[in-house]
């Protein structure tokens, strides 16, 4: 028996769904709004999924945009794959916009989605007109104040834990639960969301298995990590950003936020860039305050 469609005030399922083949990886693509309306690209953050835009995207669509979003590989309804990397995500995105967005368009990205779009727009500026980063602007994170040998030991522990995870990755499965339990797990990341909103997100982001509901995210993916990439590189590139830019920042510090503050990023903003702080929100501004976030974005797009 099919589960009934979940509901939440203001939430609307996408008007259209597509599947894009990215070199053998199936990528789930969603659109809200009229099929012939001008396109607007929307990118979700790491460990999230496009249906978290079910309130935010319809607000943009009602203003006359065809909002196009997609699930990153391993997220939402896109395929789980053998390998995951930043470059692979960017290549998948190229397949999505080649398939659905023929003309230059504005783009909005949250968190990792914002970082991806910043790099993508720098690489292909001719395909974009404006950019909005929702807590997706880079920040120069200070090194922890520890001695060199202690830093070596801490990094060693982190890498060792990551390798241990890789050894187990093939057998890992997400913990099953009721929809209510999954909603409460999500509440750790979104402590200010209503239970009703969290239940909706769990219903559209999880699948029902015989032993319970599971978030769809690939269990082989893991939070945090290490690597050669440096946030400073994005920060130093920011003054030359090629299209008009709006940054939205929250005020409540949370485990997943980027630690970016007005003071830390303002010296690097290109001329004319706008920065808006949404008081009382954390990392997920568009989920916590979708109406306020949409109004800011629409004002910026109209300017």
């Amino acid at each position, binding site marked *: 028996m099919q589960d009934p469609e979940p509901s939440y005030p203001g939430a609307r399922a996408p008007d259209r769904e597509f599947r894009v083949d990215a070199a053998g*990886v199936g990528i789930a693509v969603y659109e809200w709004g009229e099929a012939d309306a001008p396109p607007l690209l929307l990118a979700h953050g790491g460990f999230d999924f496009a249906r978290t835009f079910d309130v935010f995207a319809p607000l943009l669509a009602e203003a006359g945009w065809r909002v196009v979003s997609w699930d990153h590989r391993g997220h939402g309804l896109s395929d789980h794959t053998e390998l995951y990397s930043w470059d*692979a995500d960017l290549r998948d995105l190229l397949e999505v916009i080649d398939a659905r967005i023929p003309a230059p368009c504005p783009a909005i990205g949250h968190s990792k989605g914002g970082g991806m779009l910043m790099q993508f727009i720098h690489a292909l500026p001719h395909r974009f007109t404006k950019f909005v980063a929702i807590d997706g602007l880079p920040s120069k994170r200070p090194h922890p104040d520890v001695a060199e040998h202690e830093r070596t*030991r801490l*990094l060693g522990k982190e*890498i060792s834990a990551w390798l241990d995870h890789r050894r187990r990755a093939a057998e890992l499965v997400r913990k099953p639960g009721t929809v209510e339990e999954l909603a409460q797990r999500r509440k750790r990341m979104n402590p200010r969301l209503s239970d009703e909103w969290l239940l909706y997100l769990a219903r559209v982001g999880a699948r029902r298995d015989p032993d319970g509901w599971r978030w769809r995210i690939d269990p082989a993916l893991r939070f945090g990590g290490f690597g050669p990439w440096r946030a400073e590189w994005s920060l130093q*590139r920011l003054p030359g950003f090629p299209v008009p830019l709006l940054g939205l920042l929250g005020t409540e510090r949370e485990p997943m936020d980027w630690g970016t503050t007005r003071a830390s990023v303002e010296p690097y903003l290109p001329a004319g860039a706008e920065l808006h702080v949404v008081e009382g929100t954390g990392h997920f501004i568009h989920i916590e305050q979708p109406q306020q976030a949409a109004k800011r974005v629409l004002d910026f797009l109209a300017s």
Partner: protein
Amino acid sequence: MKHTLRHSRVELALHELVSGTGRPLLLLHGLGERSPTAAPAELADWPGGVFALDFTGHGDSTVPRGGGYTAEILMGDVDAALGFLGGATVVGRGLGAYVGLLAAGGRPEQVRGLVVRDGPGLVGGGGGSISPHIARVDSSGPVPPDPFALVELSRDLRPRDYAASFARQATQLSGLPRPISVAALERPEWLAALTEEIGVEQRPLADALRDYATLD
């Protein structure tokens, strides 16, 4: 003899070139290469078994869909081999040398000496920020090697301080006086940084192997 190992959803081919009871020698090939079919003559004096690993997307290992390669993922390949072998002395060529460095830092108790050698993919994409570029991959050629691997692992970034941090983990946590030996002549930025670290010695392959063969 070929052993099949699992690293997440990838099956890896580990070739047993020489059987033996002493500590194994693990060979890591360069970018686009595959494991040799027989142990090179220069390794004839090694007292233990000799094994060679095909990285993901190379040789007899799985070619995944849609790329997504990083040197760190290949470190996980090496870790699967170290888990199977229970530790090894590692000889890496080109890309395999850089991945060997990551493994020596990531599993300092299990890599009992690393020899860095010249070979394809030694340089990578440099040590700092580069202009963003979305690489389209032409997958019409022969596979393996995976064309995505050839593109992604020839432009992966290898900052000096990042390479040095893995060398420090190897030197501080392995308990070995000289855990890394550089027998390569090419000097990309990451390798130049490596040679400045305490515990990293520049010496020929034969000298390094003689030293590592005597370790407990």
